């Protein structure tokens, strides 16, 4: 009887390319195992969860490699789920970033009084949402991916249950996130109403046909603004500093890198696949967001006294740089995507590295104040050098990785050869100088100031998982700067499969 059900409701199961969804399924499987382990083994399982989560993430890389080796673009569900080079690069990045976050979390979560299995289970669920986002070419898929990556993150931000500030962080993040989702969903409904289809390909056709229809313009603006929350662009960044400060630091690193990158992935797909012909609408909007984010983020960052809040505002400013190529995406096409991907990849390495040092130093100082870094060079020269590498990389000083990220952005906006592009380049140039000031402020604390009298100046003991995270991120930051071809090798050429 059950077998006849599909014919009654007229449902035919669409073909599923199991290879194409293998990364998502692997993450789902490992997440389930991690959660089940807790039920079966109870306390005895705690010691293995972080290792299991790490191995699970690395396993999810295998299908990505085989998919890349097979080389062809795969589509499912009528083009709602696409696996192309664009998706593969970003899926790989999300998984590697999550792996490093697991390394950062291992000791932090084990040593505090936290639930471990649930933490890693939620982390894997969130990563699954991100990995799905990279393939989503459909409004509903994008929305599902967004919620899948956000909801676990709301919980993780409040993971330090006993600390009211962590509760505040989670609640603020949740309320702002839901608000943003609502705005975005409204925009999506407008676009859907016009196109009668949720797939980006159909949206694109409808936008081209009805270009000047105010409904289209409103829909596009709402959708972009919704994601501006996610990437913490000005003036939608207000949740970031409080959430970053209150959340457990490894979660902050995860939000600052992976969650932000997911927002950019969605923006790239929407702008490039969803409404490429509406450049008159989205270009000025993104231009304003980019300039506002880089300038406001920088200016507020100048006054920060807490390292995590500083990183939050620096993240706002960096988001401005990442938005900049999208503000000329209509003029230069695919090049804009390459620039954003390059920036996101390099940003991931250097920002995770900076957070790894912050976590390592906080193990000793138990403080987030920038002044607690005073004289670090005297008793922890290794940490000081690594932190300097990451900070000056964020500032874009060659030969550290950040220079090439900034370079890619400059290249994209200058290539547009328009007044908007050149003015954006000049503003970005000035902003990269302002940014140096606060990054150098931290460096100055570490190198130039004397250690406070009462400070404990025995050398800092760093657990092996943090050492691994620091080593990976530092090596990547240097390699990307000295031989950027390791990145451009993947980002060159046609990345995204256009449905038309």
């Amino acid at each position: 009887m059950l077998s006849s059900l599909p014919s009654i409701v007229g449902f035919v199961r669409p073909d599923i390319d199991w290879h194409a969804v293998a990364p998502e399924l692997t993450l789902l499987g490992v997440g389930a195992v991690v959660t089940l382990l807790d039920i079966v083994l109870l306390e005895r399982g705690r010691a293995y969860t972080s290792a299991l989560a790490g191995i699970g993430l690395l396993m999810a890389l295998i299908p990505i490699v085989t998919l890349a080796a097979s080389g062809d673009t795969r589509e499912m569900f009528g083009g709602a789920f696409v696996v192309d080079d664009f998706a593969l690069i970003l899926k790989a990045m999300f998984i590697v970033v999550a792996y490093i976050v697991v390394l950062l979390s291992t000791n932090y979560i084990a040593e505090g009084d936290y639930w471990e299995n649930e933490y890693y289970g939620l982390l894997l669920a969130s990563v699954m949402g991100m990995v799905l986002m990279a393939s989503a070419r459909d409004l509903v898929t994008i929305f599902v991916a967004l919620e899948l990556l956000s909801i676990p993150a709301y919980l993780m931000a409040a993971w330090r249950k006993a600390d009211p500030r962590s509760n505040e962080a989670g609640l603020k993040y949740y309320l702002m996130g839901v608000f943003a989702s609502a705005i975005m969903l409204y925009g999506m409904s407008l676009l859907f109403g016009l196109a009668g289809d949720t797939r980006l390909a159909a949206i694109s056709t409808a936008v081209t046909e009805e270009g000047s229809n105010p409904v289209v313009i409103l829909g596009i603006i709402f959708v972009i603004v919704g994601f501006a929350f996610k990437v913490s662009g000005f003036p939608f960044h207000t949740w970031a500093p409080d959430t970053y400060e209150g959340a457990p630091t490894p979660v902050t690193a995860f939000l600052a890198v992976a969650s932000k990158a997911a927002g950019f992935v969605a923006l790239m797909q929407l702008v490039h696949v969803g409404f490429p012909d509406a450049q008159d609408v989205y270009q000025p909007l993104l231009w304003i967001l980019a300039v506002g984010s880089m300038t406001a983020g920088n200016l507020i960052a100048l006054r920060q006294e807490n390292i995590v809040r500083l990183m939050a505002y620096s993240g706002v400013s960096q988001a401005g740089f990442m938005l900049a190529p999208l503000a000329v995406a209509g003029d230069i096409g695919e090049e804009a995507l390459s620039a954003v991907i390059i920036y996101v990849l390099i940003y991931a390495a250097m920002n995770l590295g900076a957070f790894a040092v912050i976590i390592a130093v906080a193990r000793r100082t138990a403080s987030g104040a920038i002044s607690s870094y005073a004289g670090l060079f005297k008793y922890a020269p290794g940490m000081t050098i690594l932190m300097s590498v990451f900070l000056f990389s964020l500032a874009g000083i060659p030969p550290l990785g950040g220079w090439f990220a900034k370079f890619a952005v400059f290249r994209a906006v200058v290539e547009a050869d328009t007044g908007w592009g050149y003015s954006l380049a000049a503003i970005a140039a000035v902003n990269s100088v302002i940014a140096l000031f606060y990054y150098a402020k931290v460096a100055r604390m570490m190198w130039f100031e004397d250690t406070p009298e009462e400070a404990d100046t025995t050398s800092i003991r760093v657990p092996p998982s943090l050492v691994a995270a620091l080593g990976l991120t530092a090596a990547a930051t240097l390699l990307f700067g000295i031989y950027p071809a390791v990145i451009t090798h993947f980002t060159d050429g046609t990345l995204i499969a256009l449905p038309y």
Partner: protein
Amino acid sequence: MGDFLNDWGLSIPTFLPIIGAAVMLLIPKDREHLHKLIALATTVAVAVFGLLLLIQFIDNDNYGALNFVVDKGWIDVIDSRYIMGVDGISLPLMLLTMLIVPLCVIYSWNHFPEPHNPKAFLMLLLILETGMIGTFAAQDLILFFVFFEVVLLPMYFMIGVWGGENRRYAAIKFFLFTLFGSALMLVSFLALYFLADASTFDMRLLPEAAAGIAKSSQVWVFGGMFLGFGIKVPMFPFHTWLPDAHTEAPTVGSVILAAVLLKLGTYGFVRIAIPILPEAAAEWAPFIGLLAVIGIIYGALGCLAQRDLKRLVAFSSVAHMGFVMLGIATLTDFGINAAVFGMVAHGLITGMLFFLAGSVKERYHTLDMSRLGGLLVQAPRMGWILGFCAMASLGLPGLAGFWGEFPAILASYNPAEVLAEETFRSYMVIAALGTVLAAGYLLWMLQKTAFGTPREEFVNDPHVHDATASEYMAWAPLLILILVLGVYPHLLFGATDPAVVNSLSDCLDSVTSGACFDAAAGK
């Protein structure tokens, strides 16, 4: 040997210092002697390599063209390549770098500034050397940019950690000023890439490829480079970082700043801005010349107002770099030859003066000239060396300083034809006045510090003694070169002239004859 040098001659000395620094990183901090030895061995090896390059360069006997060219893929997707090469303009500056750095290691052998830590100090010095040599060798704009920026971080830390009282302010000021210029310079490089006929960053191809760019765009692109290079020189309104950085930097830092880092800016004008955008250069030249002469006078007056010996030498740098920029602004091969000579001479002489200032500071623990005096009595040899360098700095014929200043003044009598003769002749008069002021402040400085009798507080001070062995070893090569180049300037002019003629002549000729402008007008 020749083949080996032609293939590897530039890459090895560029990256050898960074390898030395990496080795030092692995050795614990308390083995100070070993660190010093590694640093010395690395820098001397680089210097020996430089000597081999010089011999091979003479043997190749092709001063005007690029020698030892390497051209390999680097970042293919943006068409940026690893292109290295030197000609008669860059080789002298590169050799100057290779000479100065080991001398700095020798000089600091037994007196590292507070907070000591030779490991970190010498590692920074080695990273600096890689950046400096690389900048002079790079023939690709992006590669040039990367090396140009590599020097910032080590210098920032050198000033900030080992500097004087006000070091934090000076370090960040130096960093921010330079970064501001180079960020806009990068935008200019990119604009050049997209506007030129060929999509390339290759400095060898760009002069031709950029000829087709509309003049109005050229002027803007040149403006970005002007900021980048002009701040580094530094030219008049952007010079304010220099006195602070020089005064606060440790002795070795000041020496490197004066001897090499400032030259990166002027070198950029000679190598990149002018050959690639000659038409825009002609538009900008009167303005650059004006800023140059303002710098000459302003620097000299600034010197006269100083009480601090090191600050005085710093302001004299502003004045001297004004002469170099004036030579460049004439857009004649004569003027540019003078400028290159001026760069080398200034590197030797001002480097020496900073060494001396550092040694005075070490003995008297002050650089306040009203408290100094009688150096000739207490440390006669050092006093005489100071006198010698002051003479060289004020442009006494027979010493190297003369050949930087005099031809620059002469060249502005007769600038390139497209430039207004009257303007440049008035610049010439002002610049000549500047030399008088230079004699004034240098002799005044000499009187204050070397002549007279020592102050009571220092009469029986055991710290005050004559030059030590390591000081002699560090100074002798510079003193000899100042004299040799002064007596026989052809040593340097012989190398620079063919290169200047070759790399600038195509365009300078066309600017001079007005061909570039006719072509532009025809568009």
